[in-house]
């Protein structure tokens, strides 16, 4: 039943037309779709299609990523209030930009996508020190730390992922917490995530949502 709406929704998202995407959602609701259907059978499959398109060399652009996440976030927030039962969270992540880095766009895209996938996301903001990443992950019982960096030195420096890794080792937390990184330096060098000792990276914010969801399923829940 939702197939035609998925296509129309995707067209609107790919066209960065937020208003039209929201109209499609409303039409689907009017046609009898449940709020759960909207999230799990419309918004999430649309993101899956975007990831598939990207992997097949479709020239998706930053604005499309931004709008995909923005709309997913808005629709999910609105639908969650109407769910018949609270959804089961897949897990929790803390996320921020590396120390010295003020670029927040990538983080916002990832967080928008994660919401639709029922991942709880704690936003630590920009310019986050390594100890704060780790302290907050422990305090929030998060299984993944997401570190965004847009500059070479904030990606590679000791106050970025390397610093977080060192603290996880020192505190014996590596079995419980994974690190994912993303941002321009990683696109220019796909092996860089290994250099900075991250567990994973993603080329774009939408794919990051899927990678993080995968990491969360690998880890045991906090006691």
């Amino acid at each position, binding site marked *: 039943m939702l197939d035609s709406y998925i296509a129309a929704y995707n067209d609107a998202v790919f066209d960065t037309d937020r208003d039209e995407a929201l109209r499609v959602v409303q039409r689907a609701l009017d046609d009898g779709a449940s709020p759960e259907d909207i999230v799990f059978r419309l918004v999430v499959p649309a993101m899956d299609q975007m990831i598939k398109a990207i992997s097949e060399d479709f020239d998706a*652009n*930053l*604005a499309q990523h931004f709008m995909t996440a923005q709309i997913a976030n808005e629709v999910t927030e609105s639908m969650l209030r109407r769910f018949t039962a609270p959804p089961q969270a897949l897990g929790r992540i803390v996320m921020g930009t590396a120390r010295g880095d*003020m670029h927040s766009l990538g983080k916002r895209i990832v967080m928008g996508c994660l919401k639709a996938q029922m991942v709880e996301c704690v936003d630590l903001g920009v*310019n986050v020190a390594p100890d704060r990443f780790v302290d907050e992950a422990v305090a929030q019982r998060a299984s993944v730390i997401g570190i965004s960096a847009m500059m*070479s*030195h904030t990606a590679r420096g000791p106050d970025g992922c390397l610093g977080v890794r060192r603290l996880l080792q020192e505190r014996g937390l590596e079995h419980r917490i994974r690190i994912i990184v993303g941002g*321009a330096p990683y696109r220019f060098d796909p092996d860089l995530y290994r250099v900075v000792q991250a567990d994973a990276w993603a080329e774009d914010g939408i794919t990051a949502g899927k990678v993080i969801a995968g990491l969360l399923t690998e880890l045991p829940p906090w006691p």
Partner: protein
Amino acid sequence: MAMTALQRLAAAATRRPADRAPIFCNLFDQGARELGMPLREYYSRGAHVAEGQLRLREKFGYDNLWSLFYVGKEAELLGCNRICFADDGPPNVEHFVIDDLDDIASLEVPADITRHPAFEQPAECLRLLRQHAGGTYPICAYITSTMSLPALLMGMERWMSLLLMGPVDARDALLARCHEFFVKEVEAYRAAGADVILYANPFGSTDTVSMKFFLSHALPWIERDLRAIGTDGVVYYCGTSRINRVLDIVLDTVGIRTYYLSPFDSIADAKEIAGGRALTCGVINDARMIDWTEDEVVAEVRRMTDAGMPGGRFLIGTGVMPLAIPEANIRAFVTAARDFGSHDGGAHA
């Protein structure tokens, strides 16, 4: 054939004979290392930056000089009062002038940029560069386009939101202010001696926006920007975003004659699209130069020149070179570019 770097650039731009392709090696923070001082101190004085630029060019032997301190300087001209300095990389804007949409109305474009305190040190840098290298080496200025400037004033996240979702009146008011500033800034840098204007505009790439949005929104602002400043010495540059998909459109519509590619653009495709009508600049993926061996750097320059040298009108360039790139790799890049970029029977022939 003895040529100055400026003559070499002019020859490449107009397809006249030259000894070799010009080499633009964009070193910024490395100047502080040359002068043995922290970045914050280095960028506090135009004399430091000019000295750093002159020493780096002399040391490595490439063809261009920069008047750019760091990109946030433009935000300082518009009221930014806090820049985040690091020891190991470029400063970035920490205070966004536009915190909410009401701030747009009070955004103040300096009546005369040349008299603004934040322009004092760049002007001094330009004066010194002109004194020591004017007429010999191209002096480059980095100017952010109208459509991209708001990202420096309110952050890319909020600008993307305003640009794509409105409110439209606030968006248009901000763009109008930014255009006014853009024109004045170009005039100020040209008057101070800049030969080359790097027109920086990530929104001029379909890596950032869709082709539909590019045509309906980005291109009209590019046209307006270039109508105001002319195309003399202007280089079309979209950061690290690809430009091949728009190159023909911009060339036809706006008439810019120099295109600084992304490392991810195919050089061969760019040359074909330009069809001898424009100078194309092949750009090495300098993020990889941190870890590459010297041989790998040379091999990459070889690949670039193999694609770019046939037919001429080619420049060999870098992006913003990270401070972590070993000097040996910078030397390897310049040496290979001089060699493979030779028109007079160098190793490439």
